[in-house]
């Protein structure tokens, strides 16, 4: 895409011949086509294997469309719009839609699959070995091409043939030391690899008996078992132990008269259930305002603090009399260049009361991450350290773009350096940097790592263990959705929708104000 832009610049500069084949033009074309071809080659085989013909058709159509678009001379604007649009759809629109649609379901632990999968899990899980029944040694064999089980009772050494029709005694079979049948008249005994090849057939074969069914347990043993729970489509319920368990389509569980439910559930649509839970659950709504307030403070302090610090350093280095700026710049960028994951963990250990560097250095005994005030200061400090090099970099860039004549003119007119900065440099900087500040705010508003890897949201007051002093909305809700009740993707999605709405509103307001500001200075 960068090459595309390049090509665009090239064509604009030239006297617009009908077709000029520049290197950039060729490279950009090749790049787009190669990506499209690579995607097709990568995605087609699994789709074919899966038999998803609709997806395959769509994929082929899209690839063909892209190939046509970039090989024809027409549709020039579309050539520039398509890559961005495809990325927008794939990385923005689709995840948002998927999240929103998940928010209306109870998708999560216990409700991952569909009802049929739950029923089959319930039935398989309830199969118990018939009391007193033998654990047969199993030999898979063929009789007239049909799979049968040769079952040897380990005690009596009696051999029986089991098929879909039931059990029948076998005479004249030769049994080896391991209890497996070596040969039997009328049967072709399958060798281990042959039996393994028919693994799926073997697991499916059920030999009916008076007490239940005999099923293979692996390739060398078979047991007689009976399902304690059986699904009955007529009443849409599961009969057996503790039952009847009636299907409750609102909750995605089989429920009995006592209100208990079977462990295995299925995914159902719960409408606005997740959203109302966010709004009405006292452990969520009760803490919301407090968490939201601190979240705003954290995001503003992080975005504002990094900006002020980064700009101050950039201004200092921008001064014409400053020497050794290169070395300073390299040193200042270091925190930005280091992996933030590792740095956050290092900072966490530095704040340890008894083993941490900070207390050792200052000879203090502060439980930094153990008290709400110091913990909040600590996470903001860490985030400041991690974030200011970025602001320093962008401010340095923006400062280079401001002509020195402007500040010189201001000082000739008698403006103090501070006045000149406030009235000339800062407004010009802000025009360039406000969008970055807003995105920095939005990023820090959801800065999960900065909290989770340092304070984990703590310290937690003993009287309300659900919410910690440094919890952001995102860390708090992450714990709600994935901590206590296993993974609750539906609920998590509903919370994401709320946070998305919050950040979107704040950012929209901020951008609107920026636009006004730009109109003033433009």
């Amino acid at each position, binding site marked *: 895409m960068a090459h595309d832009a390049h090509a665009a610049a090239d064509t604009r500069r030239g006297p617009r011949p009908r077709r000029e084949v520049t290197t950039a033009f060729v490279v950009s074309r090749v790049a787009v086509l190669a990506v499209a071809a690579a995607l097709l080659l990568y995605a087609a085989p699994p789709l074919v294997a899966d038999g998803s013909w609709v997806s395959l058709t769509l994929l082929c159509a899209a690839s063909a469309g892209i190939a046509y678009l970039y*090989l024809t001379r027409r549709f020039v604007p579309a050539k520039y719009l398509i890559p961005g649009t495809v990325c927008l759809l794939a990385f923005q629109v689709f995840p948002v839609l998927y999240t929103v649609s998940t928010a209306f379901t109870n998708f999560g*632990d216990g409700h991952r699959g569909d009802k049929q999968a739950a029923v089959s899990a319930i039935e*398989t*899980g309830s199969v118990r070995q018939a009391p007193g029944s033998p654990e047969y040694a199993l030999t898979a064999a063929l009789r007239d091409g049909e799979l049968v089980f040769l079952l040897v009772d380990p005690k009596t050494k009696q051999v029986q043939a089991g098929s879909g029709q039931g059990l029948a005694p076998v005479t004249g079979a030769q049994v080896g030391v391991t209890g497996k049948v070596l040969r039997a008249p009328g049967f072709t005994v399958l060798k281990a690899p042959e039996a393994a090849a028919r*693994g799926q057939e*073997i697991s499916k074969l059920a030999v009916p008996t008076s007490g239940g069914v005999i099923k*293979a*347990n692996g390739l*060398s043993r078979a047991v007689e078992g009976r399902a304690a729970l059986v699904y009955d489509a007529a009443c849409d319920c599961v009969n057996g132990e503790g039952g009847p368990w009636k299907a409750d389509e609102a909750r995605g569980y089989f429920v009995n008269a006592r209100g208990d439910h079977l462990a295995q559930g299925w995914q159902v649509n719960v409408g606005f259930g997740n959203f109302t839970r966010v709004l009405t659950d006292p452990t969520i709504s009760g803490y919301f305002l407090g968490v939201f307030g601190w979240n705003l403070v954290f995001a503003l302090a992080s975005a504002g603090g990094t900006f002020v610090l980064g700009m101050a350093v950039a201004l200092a280095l921008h001064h014409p009399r400053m020497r050794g700026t290169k070395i300073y710049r390299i040193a200042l960028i270091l925190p930005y260049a280091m992996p933030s994951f590792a740095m956050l963990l290092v900072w966490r250990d530095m704040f340890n009361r008894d083993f941490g560097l900070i207390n050792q250095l200052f000879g203090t005994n502060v439980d930094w991450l153990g008290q709400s005030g110091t913990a909040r200061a600590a996470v903001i400090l860490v985030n400041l350290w991690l974030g200011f090099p970025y602001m320093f970099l962008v401010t340095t860039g923006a400062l280079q773009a401001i002509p020195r004549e402007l500040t010189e003119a201001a000082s000739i007119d008698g403006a103090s350096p501070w006045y000149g900065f406030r009235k000339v440099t800062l407004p010009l900087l802000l025009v360039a940097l406000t969008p970055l500040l807003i995105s920095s705010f939005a990023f820090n508003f959801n800065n999960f790592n900065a909290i989770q890897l340092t304070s984990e949201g703590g310290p937690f007051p*003993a009287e309300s263990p659900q919410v910690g002093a440094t919890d952001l909305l995102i860390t708090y809700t992450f714990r709600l959705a994935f901590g206590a009740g296993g993974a609750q993707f539906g609920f998590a999605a509903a919370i994401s929708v709320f946070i998305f709405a919050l950040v979107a509103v704040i950012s929209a307001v901020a951008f609107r104000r920026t636009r006004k500001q730009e109109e003033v200075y433009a």
Partner: protein
Amino acid sequence: MRKRAMGAAAHLAALSALAVAVTACGGGGDKAAPSAAPTGSSGATAPAAQGGKLVIWADPNRVKALKPFAEQFGTDNGVTVEVKEISKDNQQVFLTASQQGSGPDIMVGAHDWIGNLVQNGAIDPVNLTEEQKAAFPEIAMKAVTFNGQVYAAPYAVENIALIRNTDLAPDAPATIEDLVAKGKALKEAGKVKEVLCLPVAQKGDAFHVYPIFASGGGALFGATSTGDPDPKKVLVGSADSVKAFDRLKELGEKGEGALKTSITNENYIATFAAKKCAFLISGPWAMGDVKKGGFPYDITPVPSFKGGKPATPFVGVQSFFVAAKGKNKALAQEFVANYVTNKDVAKALYAADPRPPALTAALQEVQAADADAGKFMEAGKNGFPMPAIPEMAAIWEPFGIAEAAVVKGGDPAKSAEAAQKAIDSSIKN
């Protein structure tokens, strides 16, 4: 069709695109080739490779130990066996992949996953014969049994114990009081920095503190009629548990100073290995670092309070599961039920990662060479299998926070009550 379009466009770009497409095809072919090759060669040694493929997922520690056995099993049965390494969030990765149909046939993991795996329909029961069951200690079989069904084949049992530096503390403490007294004396004499190395951290650590909590009379769940933990009876806020939290407070920062939030999972083993504390409460996974410390040590059960209840540690059982959505279930059952429950496999897994083998016969052999395994097993003999019910997920955090709060000197009754409330509300949902 695309080649024709390119020909029609007939300029440099198209030619280059074609070249790229061709190289891309070539690349794809190259990639396909090596994956096809092993199938071909194993087909030569094992006549019927059409038996398909058995896929096993395990954590990085165990992959290497499993490989030779997996290959042996593959040759015996004429199948290809692939052992794949999953390094993070194994349970979630397994669940998600299973649901999509891209999961393994066999999963290696901890027994306390069972509740969650069962409620997601991700694993099948494993049928072990009476003889096979008898080869394992009772606690291992109890751990892998859920709702009256055996859901896994155990291969290693692990629990925490008291590891002490015998240079500093020659005698095993009989009670927690003795342990604290000895630790404090050593600290006052300047020989150690900490009384006891037991991780608490800012969010508490229910796993490591549980034996002490249990000895103080505390409990997490009541029991059902079958003796399993009953999710409907959460006892974290009960009067007995409050008393146990009170004992933890006495040991805490405002009391004896044996439990401290500054001791965390990251530093507790290192601190012990650096001889900065004489007592460590940890499991077999600490032994690598402890041995590097280069001092004599001994492993004994976690002591109980004087006149208190037994200090029962949680017992975790590492196991093999048969995936319910696996493509080759008969083979998976065969591998798990009849092949893994074999002494040599257990010993190889022990060599790769020294967690005491679950098989009694394997443990006996391992013990002869390495006494630690037997000592850990002894320490966990009266242990409590970590509850496998899904509701256990609701316990860890509120319990830990209550623990950290009382260790810092908070009010036990209030902390326990708040924890109980938090647990109840998340179980209800």
